[in-house]
């Protein structure tokens, strides 16, 4: 028995020691993911982890500098709108994929036509369904046709739309791409253990694009769902970088002084969605404007930000993130006033409040705090915590009276990525307001920035006046890494391995 125990202890020690050697000395950066990534193929997941890998393995036609927000060419060197719905791009020459396949117009045409076809089932249709098709002009010139005038095209081409090798993708499809991804990006994939372990290696033949050359030789990513385990591994030296660290823990690590803690804002906005259209029952209290206003007045956004979210979070009053194009900020704001909330509830015919189901899918702590604010004005909550997909299904069926939701806009810096996603009478639209729809239709398809701004503002004002949502706060994320790592996180919640180096 004793010998057995000793053996196990020694084995454990050897294992952990073996892990601890990997760091600057062998040019391997060890990173943790919190969630299991469903597929590495970037069109077939909607996870933040997927975005991180996408930016490392693949390139887009265009690149948006995360600091200056300027668009520069990546796989395309120049582009030009030929008419309202046709974008012509000149491609970079001499680029090749990780498997040696040269990059040219055929790859662009294949990728665009594949993902734009709804039958192929790209997970986030909003990212790709604005494209009609692509057309080859010559080996290094392509045209992308949009379904309607789509001014945000450049933003999407520099974000979620990345270029795949046509021959390889035609052969292996999304499944093969998910297990053995091939791209043009600064990092090549060495191995994928789906959902658990990803090893990347610097692409030594990376083209001279705006991302710059990768400096760290090897990236070793493991999925570790439990934050405490991640921290323990960080302290032990078996991890070099963790991210999405909750503020409370990040604060304590910063006090310890042994690690670099960097806080950055993200585009993710937390809000309460209310069933104003009465989909969960016509007598649902949230169909009453006064009730929705009461909910808005019941929330102390400032305190939520100061005490819970901390960092670079800010209170939010609009149905979009302030930096997004068209996200007007001069809309009706509802200040924290529980007495007014109670009065509004009484006016609406609920002097003693009412009972409702309250759904949430993440950040249980925030959800509890929010529910507690609602309880304080008399809205009794039946708290239900579900998985994201389960809540989304329930929402699509119209069975959710009020829920705590968040949306990260896929880091797309345009209001269409948020407000148009939820207020155009889609399955997730709880408001179904025709006025909002009309304004959004104009704003989404106009090529005149002034017109777009004006109509987004009108839509956002109407949403705020009608209190369809209770927008609350923006998120921030904490990056914690050892002092051997040099990295300046950006405000879009994307880890960029190619911008990291050893000190």
């Amino acid at each position, binding site marked *: 028995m004793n010998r057995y125990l000793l053996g196990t202890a020694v084995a454990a020690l050897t294992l952990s020691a073996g892990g601890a050697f990997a760091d600057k000395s062998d040019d391997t950066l060890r990173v943790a993911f919190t969630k299991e990534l469903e597929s590495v193929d970037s069109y077939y997941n909607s996870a933040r982890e997927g975005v991180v890998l996408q930016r490392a393995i693949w390139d887009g036609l265009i690149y948006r500098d995360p600091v200056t927000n300027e668009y520069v060419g990546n796989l395309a060197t120049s582009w030009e709108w030929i008419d309202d719905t046709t974008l012509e791009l000149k491609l970079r020459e001499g680029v090749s994929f990780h498997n040696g396949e040269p990059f040219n117009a055929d790859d662009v045409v294949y990728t665009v036509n594949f993902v734009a076809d709804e039958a192929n089932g790209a997970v986030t249709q909003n990212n790709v369904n604005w494209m009609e098709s692509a057309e080859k002009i010559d080996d290094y010139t392509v045209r992308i046709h949009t379904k309607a005038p789509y001014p945000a095209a450049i933003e999407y081409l520099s974000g979620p739309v990345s270029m795949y090798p046509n021959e390889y993708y035609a052969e292996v499809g999304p499944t093969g791409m998910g297990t053995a991804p091939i791209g043009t990006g600064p990092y090549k994939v060495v191995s994928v253990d789906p959902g658990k372990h990803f090893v990347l290696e610097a692409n030594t033949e990376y083209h001279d694009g705006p991302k710059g050359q990768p400096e760290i030789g090897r990236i070793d990513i493991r999925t570790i769902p439990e934050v405490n385990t991640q921290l323990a591994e960080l302290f032990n030296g078996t991890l070099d970088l963790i991210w999405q660290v909750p503020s*409370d823990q990040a604060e304590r690590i910063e006090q310890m002084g042994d690690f670099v803690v960097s806080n950055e804002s993200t585009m993710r906005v937390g809000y309460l969605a209310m069933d104003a259209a009465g989909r969960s029952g016509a007598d649902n209290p949230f169909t009453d404007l006064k009730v929705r206003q009461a909910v808005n007045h019941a929330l102390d956004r400032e*305190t939520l930000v100061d*005490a*819970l979210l901390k960092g670079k979070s800010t209170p939010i009053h609009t149905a979009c993130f302030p930096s997004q194009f068209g996200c007007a900020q001069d809309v009706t704001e509802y200040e924290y006033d529980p007495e007014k909330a109670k009065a509004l509830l009484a006016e609406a015919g609920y002097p003693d409040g009412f009972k409702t189901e309250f759904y949430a899918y993440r950040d*249980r702590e925030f959800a509890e705090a929010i529910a507690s604010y609602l309880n304080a004005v008399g809205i009794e909550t039946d*708290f239900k915590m579900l998985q994201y997909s389960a809540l989304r299904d329930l929402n699509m069926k119209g069975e959710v009276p009020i829920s705590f939701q968040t949306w990260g806009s896929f880091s797309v810096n345009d209001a269409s990525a948020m407000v148009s996603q939820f207020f155009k009478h889609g399955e997730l639209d709880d408001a179904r307001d025709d006025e909002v729809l009309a304004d959004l239709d104009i704003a989404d398809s106009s090529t005149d920035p002034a017109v777009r701004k004006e109509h987004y503002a009108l839509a956002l004002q109407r949403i705020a006046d009608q209190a369809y949502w209770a927008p609350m706060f923006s998120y921030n994320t904490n990056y914690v890494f050892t002092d051997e790592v040099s990295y300046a996180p950006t405000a879009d919640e994307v880890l960029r391995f190619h911008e990291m180096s050893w000190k």
Partner: protein
Amino acid sequence: MSAAMPRATATAAAPRDPLLEEITGPTPGQMLRRRIFGHQGFLIGTITLLVLLAIALVAPLIAPHDPYAQDLMSRMERPVFMGGDWDHVLGTDHLGRDYLSRLIYGARVSLLIGGVAALISGLIGTAMGVAAGYFGGRVDMVVTFLINVRLAMPVTLVALAVVAVLGGSLEVVIGVLGLLLWDRFAVVMRASTLQVRGREYVAAARAIGCSTPRILLTEILPNILNALIVVVTLEMAHAILLEAALSFLGLGVQPPTPSWGLMVSEGKNMMLFEPWLVLIPGAVLFVLVLAINLMGDGLRDVTAPENRS
């Protein structure tokens, strides 16, 4: 006690009768009392449980704060013994709610769930066990089969699945645990009934024409009661722990209801930096379950037939 009274009077009336002198000495009641007060475990367990029960009953009177009152500006303040202030003796939780008040109200949840779940499963299990033991034959076969079916199901897994489908709430948790934990009642009650059904007094009752329900209620049940009480305490502790486990997994009692399992779960994230958030509710849970188990063990020792002679 009442049976002892005339005997004592008789002894006093005729002290020299040698036959009667033999049975002087402690009465059964006195012997029981002596066994109770001589059994430390039983005493400690019972007193602790009674104290916790009293705390749960008068929670609104003794809780220093409203257990639901959130104050985000004073989150995770440390308890007094770790340098906190006396306003929040045991500190505050991740939403700035008073920890002591939540613990006190949490006692209600734990004891309510333990008590009611044990009651429900006790009724089901006892009815099945007694029926199987008394009637035997086909009834016994059916009940034994049901017990086997029930034993083949992992309780935690089934509870998790049911709660996941129905949604977690106090009522659902009590219901699920009550309907799942009857197996031990059934097994023990069946065995105990088998032991007493052949006794003379049962045969006598049958001979003078007592109805079956009457025999079950007045002859069988009182004689298997001590075994029943022991199982009740065990299952109560079991139910309390299961509730804590379900709540820890986010499938039990839903926030903001204070539950000790939920408190452990909510404190878990800060475990590395503020271990007391987990240790305090954990310790209280440990004490409660230990008290109930001590009391159950004690009851068995105190009332076991071999100790009566």
